[in-house]
């Protein structure tokens, strides 16, 4: 059974991820079950997707602009961001924008080339779910949340940067 990391625990993955074919053709929708569709599929089949039973999620590619779905958030149960490679930094900005600018509160899942070593950064950018790439050990990866015990910058999980916590509010808090 496929697993993901969600809220810092290993969890079952009940979602079916639908990727367009190499020729950009949209995959067929299964009659039932929870699906995550591409932005293209959401745009093209919006009504059919809303009429369908089962939960709906959308996934954004590294080149998609999250502003495009800013008005549609209420229709989604989950938003995923695809990392063709974990060193493609665009997804990190997309995560922050979804959380900080467009107010997305639901599950934000990193998919694609996601390895243990970027979980700490991703979670600071607002991701709370991780579908690790094939071959990664989800259980072992849980320790990544503790890679660092503090961080300087403002982030989604803790908007107050360290310097404000240091000089303005009581002692510094730690993430654990």
């Amino acid at each position, binding site marked *: 059974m496929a697993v993901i990391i969600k809220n810092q625990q290993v969890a079952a993955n009940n979602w079916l991820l639908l990727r367009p074919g190499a020729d950009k053709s949209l995959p067929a929708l299964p009659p039932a079950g929870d699906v995550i569709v591409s932005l293209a599929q959401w745009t093209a089949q919006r009504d059919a997707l809303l009429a369908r039973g089962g939960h709906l999620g959308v996934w954004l590619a590294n080149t998609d602009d999250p502003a495009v779905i800013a008005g549609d958030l209420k229709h989604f149960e989950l938003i995923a961001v695809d990392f063709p490679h*974990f060193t493609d930094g665009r997804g*990190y*900005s997309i995560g922050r924008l979804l959380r900080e600018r467009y107010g997305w509160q639901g599950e934000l899942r990193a998919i694609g080339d996601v390895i243990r070593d970027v979980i700490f950064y991703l979670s600071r*950018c607002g991701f709370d779910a991780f579908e690790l790439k094939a071959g990664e050990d989800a259980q072992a990866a849980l320790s990544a949340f503790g890679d660092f015990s*503090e961080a300087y910058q*403002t982030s989604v999980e803790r*908007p*107050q940067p360290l310097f404000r916590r240091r000089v303005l509010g009581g002692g510094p808090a730690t993430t654990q």
Partner: protein
Amino acid sequence: MYIYDEIDQRIVDDRVNQFRDQTRRFLAGSLSEDDFRPLRLQNGLYIQRFAPMLRVAIPYGLLGSHQLRALAYIARKWDRGYGHFSTRQNIQFNWPKLEEVPDILAKLATVQMHAIQTSGNCIRNTTTDHFAGVAADEVIDPLVWCEIIRQWSAFHPEFAFLPRKFKIAVSGAEKDRAAIQVHDIGLQATQDEQGNICFRVLVGGGLGRTPIIGTEICAFLPWQHLLSYLDAVLRVYNRYGRRDNKYKARIKILVKELKPEVFRAEVEAEWAHLKDGPATLVAQEVERITKRFTRPAYQKLDALASGYVLALGRDKAFANWARRNVHSHKVAGYAAVTLSLKKTGVPPGDVTADQMDAIADLADRYSFGELRVSHEQNLILADVRQADLFELWQQARELGLATPNIGLLTNIIACPGGDFCSLANAKSIPVAEAIAQRFDDLDYLHDIGELDLNISGCMNSCGHHHVGHIGVLGVDKHGAEFYQISIGGAQGNDAALGKVLGPSVSQSEVPDVIEKLIDLYLERRDSAEERFVDVVRRIGIEPFKEHVYGGHHKKPAGRGEQLAVA
């Protein structure tokens, strides 16, 4: 020195543990070579021609004597007894073993040092004026702002994987010694009419294959907004910078392709969301950081020490050294001193472990235990009493660190080149050496006057050849090592990119070409005050070309007018 608090220390320690675990997983085979590569690069670890190379950050060039001793220890224990100071206020070790790098990082952490983000496509070590805090022409001390930027950039979660590397330089003086016009972001700290600190922001400068001078996108950025503005610039770059071609991935290409006005509008639009948010700096933080910097306890001294003046009159060699290697200081009776790492016969920037220990002793004895690393690959004792200069000179001379050549032709900047670097087209170090040997008559050197000669082994321009008054670039000509010479480049306030003189020449011809350039310069200058680069600007490159290539004997076929973009 900035002194870490408990949290700064903990973050660096966490990094050591993280990297130890990554190295362990890599060696055990559970972290693939491809995945490990970008991770180790963010720790300054390259795999080079002969061995891994570890690049250690010297944040904004400031180094304590105890830290230099730790570097000496590392050089002895884990390397071959020396290190190489680079033009980016870093030190590189060329021979560490991969499995020992975590131990090296742990040793560094004990003296509040690290290799964080010294390589990779992330925000690199922030650099500044090597006379920061002591320069007579300083308006704002940039060190505090550099440390604020260091903390903001260290493990920034959103900007760890940019399209390409990203370098920020800060200057706070009238004279730009930090090369802010050729950085991804250049910050000029200044004051507005009310005396509030603010920053002039330049973006999109850089050398490399497409050398470009940065453009101003903000004239007065109030200090409170420094970090939110940087976040905005970086976010625009992270989202829209090109990732399809690594030669077009620097921010300078994005700025150029969008046009600076459009880029600026994008940044302003992004900043409108971030401005006044939690990243807004507060006075208490600036004060806290300021207080964590130790400052020299200066004595009250006369503006000019009489013993110093006497020694200058008595000893010509000392006077020569003082003229080139001693610099004015904002505190009366003090001076800044450059220890030259450019002795003929030694690769530029190389220092042995024994020299490091000896330099650390000099720093303790004469300069409050502190040093600076300059981007010209020299070391600086920034706070020396004038009365101690003669004694310091004698000791530096014994250590081979008193070559009186700062600002002169033999103060050559050279990258590691083909002897060490796998990207090189040609060697740099032997060329630097051959030139230094040709010009080793000191009287002649002083007569030639100020001249920056920079050498890069390939168009990545690590040796800054574009901004040398004379630039030498290694090129590959049908598998053989050749050198392209350019003239008229400059760094600093009047930064300019050099123009290629003509067809490239072989290694043995380089010193001859330099000599010909110098001959013509000496013949054509108005006076000893007119520098080489001034003459190039006044008379153009044609007469030099003519003199070197002898009229029509080789046809440069128009290439001579192009920039050195190879």
